[in-house]
């Protein structure tokens, strides 16, 4: 005898679109959420002590982990007063049975570029300079998706920002006589973020926007919309790569909702 949940899941496998439609007609989603409700969000800090700072985000079943490693380099000749950072996003092999060895696939590369783009707006690399033209910090930001149940974007963004916020860099001074760097581990200072970007993603199914889509909702719909806003309501990014057309009211509503969400998340987790 099957339980209601098992029966529901089997129907979802056989005729997924009808299954989702029947729920949406009642303004609710298969997992019981309303159209603009988030899944439970859990933020765990310092999950990888070998990294200089790290964070793991669980958004429903989606799990993303970020680790930041700081190293020192000689600044590039063109930008002697700037450090640098690089974001590398990958789907871990435990994430998908179809994972293949080799360089990250296009979805992963797109995510890396997206995260990099947002960071460039909120994080200034001149604060990473230790001594102009001699020594600067470079941050390696590694993000791994451990489980993908939709909306990896929001989870990844939050894990990066949380890790950056917790990052503390030791003070380095250059000894005048020997020209060698002296590291002072006693004195560590955090990095400065101009703004706190929070990403909000909506799946789109038959013209209806679903906040924080699960993997199945993303699969069934056309492409999702991602809006990134700072905690004060500045719009940093609006991303929609094709998909069925949306009305202007929907776009405006999505942006407004994102702004509100950004300040809520900021107050809850980063204030």
């Amino acid at each position: 005898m099957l339980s209601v949940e098992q029966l529901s899941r089997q129907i979802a496998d056989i005729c997924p679109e009808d299954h989702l439609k029947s729920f949406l007609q009642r303004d609710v989603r298969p997992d019981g959420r309303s159209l603009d409700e988030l899944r439970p969000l859990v933020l765990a800090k310092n999950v990888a002590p070998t990294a200089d700072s790290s964070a793991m985000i669980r958004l429903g079943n989606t799990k993303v982990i970020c680790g930041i490693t700081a190293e020192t380099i000689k600044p590039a000749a063109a930008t002697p007063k700037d450090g640098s950072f690089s974001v590398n996003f990958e789907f871990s092999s435990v994430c998908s049975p179809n994972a293949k060895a080799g360089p990250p696939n296009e979805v992963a590369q797109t995510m890396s570029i997206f995260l990099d783009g947002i960071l460039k707006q909120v994080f200034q690399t001149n604060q990473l300079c230790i001594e102009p033209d001699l020594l600067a910090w470079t941050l390696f930001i590694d993000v791994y998706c451990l489980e993908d149940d939709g909306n990896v974007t929001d989870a990844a963004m939050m894990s990066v920002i949380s890790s950056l916020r917790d990052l503390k860099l030791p003070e380095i001074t250059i000894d005048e006589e020997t020209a060698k760097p002296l590291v002072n581990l006693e004195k560590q200072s955090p990095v400065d973020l101009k703004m706190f970007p929070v990403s909000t993603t909506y799946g789109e199914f038959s013209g209806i926007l679903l906040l924080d889509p699960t993997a199945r909702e993303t699969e069934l719909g056309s492409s999702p919309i991602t809006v990134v806003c700072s905690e004060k309501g500045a719009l940093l990014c609006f991303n929609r790569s094709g998909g069925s057309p949306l009305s202007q009211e929907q776009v405006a509503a999505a942006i407004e909702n994102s702004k509100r969400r950004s300040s809520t998340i900021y107050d809850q987790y980063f204030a």
Partner: protein
Amino acid sequence: MELLSDEGFRFDGRRAAEFRKIQGRLGVFDHADGSAILQQGNTKVLAAVFGPRQPMASQHGAVSQEKCIVDVEYSRAAFASAERKRRARGDKKAQEISLSLKKTFEATILTTLYPRSAISIFVEVLQADGGDYAVCVNAATLALIDAGIPIRDVCCAVSCGVAIKDNVAYSLLDLAYSEESARIPTIVATGMPKTGEMVFFEVESRLHMDYFRAQI
């Protein structure tokens, strides 16, 4: 660094034959058929098992009528070790470890029960503090148990170093990274407790035969 003090303690206060603290959980991933996260001391490994399922197109050549294909992939987070190492996912070290894990589990899983199918095991090292290979084997075994895949016996692995003090050889079990870097002879062994069989054995350094027999 002194591996074994006069009182018989290692650098982290353990005795020679003492393991690090082991913490593990099964069923951590929803989408995998079986999954586990295992932590021995500061080494943390995630394992996920998918299968038995239809082999992927790329595996068609290896499909067998008598048994299932076991496919293992090992990877390591860039921030896993104290020094960041970004390795492309198909690099030689990872492939070597993947191959040894594959051989180990081909021997452990009752492959004849699932002909023409494939079982995929994925292992991700999140934190590496010594004994990574051994913890990977243990984590993968737990994930297989969680997936309910029939196995011959529980496959356990341990790394063991030989410290020679006053002409007596002491086995240091479950090495930490600092002990591994001390370049003592190391043995990594995987065995099946019930049957007493050894599945995998690796020694990478010079070791006098007398000491070697003692370690086994």
